[in-house]
């Protein structure tokens, strides 16, 4: 049976078998790509970005900017672009109609069928997508860093990425993810978007969302799962290292705070754009393709600084609810109340004067001071694993450092083509 993704389109993996691939790439001009583009090549080829089959053309881009839709009317909120400079285009001798080979880590990765070469006003793009054109907005900065020309066209993977340990069990592309959900017998799955090592505030966000999602379903057997979908992409100094994020999220299941019957951890390659409301819509599309039925949204989802109001994303989602195939689950913050002596929701407890809020930043600060937080705030198994990850993967630190950026093992490698 066909798996239907966003926009009512079937999810198709655009991946060639090795023998066919070896034949197809003969004589093609090779263009090396950076990790930012390689991530999105993977997303396009495995169907994470259904209905997109390749990098966007000008008509789609313009429509995404102005109407938050592809040219055919399908809801789409974030540009997916392939950039080159005019000089590079001349040096490679590329023209519309050419097929080229994209290489990564010096190995063949994907075929790119160039259907259009164009330019676009980056400032206008920023204003439309981010609601600002300020360079200090990280999404704008990323946009301004694009070279001057954009190339559109279909992408076909010629070489599957090798996902390196410890990440390998967590790469579950849309078709595989959907099979997994069927095996588990889940009829509703709620997405938890994260870039964090979980504290109990996060744990309770997931637990709360699980209750909300379960709603009227029968409870005789487990029917609802939480999918942690960690975003793996560009890192900033001071972030938790990727290894700690993915392993610690899964540790909540391994240590019994959740179980196999209701919790699964996975990753998606994506550079956060911090586009707030528009990124919230994009996350809905991404998780629809992964086969989820529900999506958690807290305050200021995917926001940055003070660019977006706490509920702007919720409002934008409401305007497209009929056209996206996922139900938003809105989460209030969880906090510690010494009077209740428990983690509670700000929507429940009324000991307002006694509330002790905590954030990922505060937890990082505690850990940095060499203090082990109480188990009600941060699970001891998670704390121990953070420390282990620091030693094993982080060159002594659980947070991203220059050394980590320079020496870490990449999440995936593109091996030589084996045919």
């Amino acid at each position, binding site marked *: 049976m066909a798996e239907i993704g966003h926009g009512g389109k079937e999810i198709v993996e655009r991946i060639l078998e090795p023998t066919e691939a070896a034949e197809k790439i003969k004589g093609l001009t090779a263009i090396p790509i950076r990790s930012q583009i390689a991530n999105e090549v993977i997303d396009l080829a495995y169907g994470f970005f259904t209905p997109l089959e390749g990098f966007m053309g000008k008509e789609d881009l313009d429509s995404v900017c102005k109407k938050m839709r592809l040219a055919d009317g399908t809801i789409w909120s974030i540009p997916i672009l392939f950039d080159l400079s005019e000089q590079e285009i001349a040096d490679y001798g590329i023209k519309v109609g050419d097929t080229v080979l994209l290489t990564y880590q010096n190995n063949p990765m994907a075929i790119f069928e160039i259907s259009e070469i164009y330019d676009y006003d980056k400032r206008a793009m920023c204003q439309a997508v981010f609601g600002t054109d300020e360079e200090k907005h990280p999404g704008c900065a990323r946009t301004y860093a694009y070279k001057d020309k954009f190339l559109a066209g279909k992408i076909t993977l010629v070489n599957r990425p090798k996902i390196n340990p410890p990440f390998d069990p967590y790469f579950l592309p849309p078709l595989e993810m959907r099979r997994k959900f069927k095996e588990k017998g889940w009829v509703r799955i709620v997405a938890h978007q994260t870039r964090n090592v979980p504290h109990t505030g996060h744990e309770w966000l997931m637990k709360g969302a699980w209750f909300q999602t379960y709603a009227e379903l029968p409870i005789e057997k487990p029917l609802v799962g939480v999918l942690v979908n960690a975003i793996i992409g560009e890192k900033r100094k001071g972030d938790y290292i990727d290894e700690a994020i993915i392993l610690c999220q899964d540790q909540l299941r391994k240590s019994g705070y959740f179980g196999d019957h209701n919790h699964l951890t996975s990753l998606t390659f994506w550079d956060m754009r911090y586009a707030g409301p528009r990124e919230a819509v994009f996350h809905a599309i991404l998780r629809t393709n992964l086969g989820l039925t529900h999506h958690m949204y807290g305050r200021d989802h995917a926001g940055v600084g003070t660019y977006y109001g706490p509920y702007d994303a919720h409002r934008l989602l409401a305007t497209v609810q009929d056209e996206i195939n996922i139900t938003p689950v809105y989460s209030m913050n969880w906090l510690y109340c*010494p009077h209740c*002596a428990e983690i509670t929701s700000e929507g429940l407890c009324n000991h307002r004067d006694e509330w002790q809020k*905590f954030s990922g*930043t505060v937890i990082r*600060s505690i850990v*940095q*001071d060499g203090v082990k937080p*109480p188990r009600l*705030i941060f699970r001891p198994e998670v704390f121990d694993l953070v420390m282990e990850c620091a030693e094993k993967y982080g060159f002594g630190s659980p947070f991203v450092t220059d050394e980590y950026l320079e020496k870490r093992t990449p999440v995936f490698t593109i091996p030589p083509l084996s045919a």
Partner: protein
Amino acid sequence: MAEEKYPINIWVNEERFEKLQKAGLADMCEEMLAGLKVIRVYCNEAQKDKILKTFPTAKFDSATTKSIELLPREVKDKIFDKIVEKQSIDIMDDFLSQY
């Protein structure tokens, strides 16, 4: 209007607690978050700005806790030692004068 005060949370690990006990200052600790010992040193707006400028890794958590977090451990150790030395948490001017 009263001036806004922004705390720096000095989380008290065993080593720090021992020093406090020796100095007879153990009751300077508050308890937060289900049993964490902390000393809160308060900064005014100008002090907050100077700290964020002097120590670029530091972050003002404006959304949740309104506190200054992620100061390097050595910096916090220095603030802590100052507290013990002066037997007071009113040390920010003194501490910042060296930067």
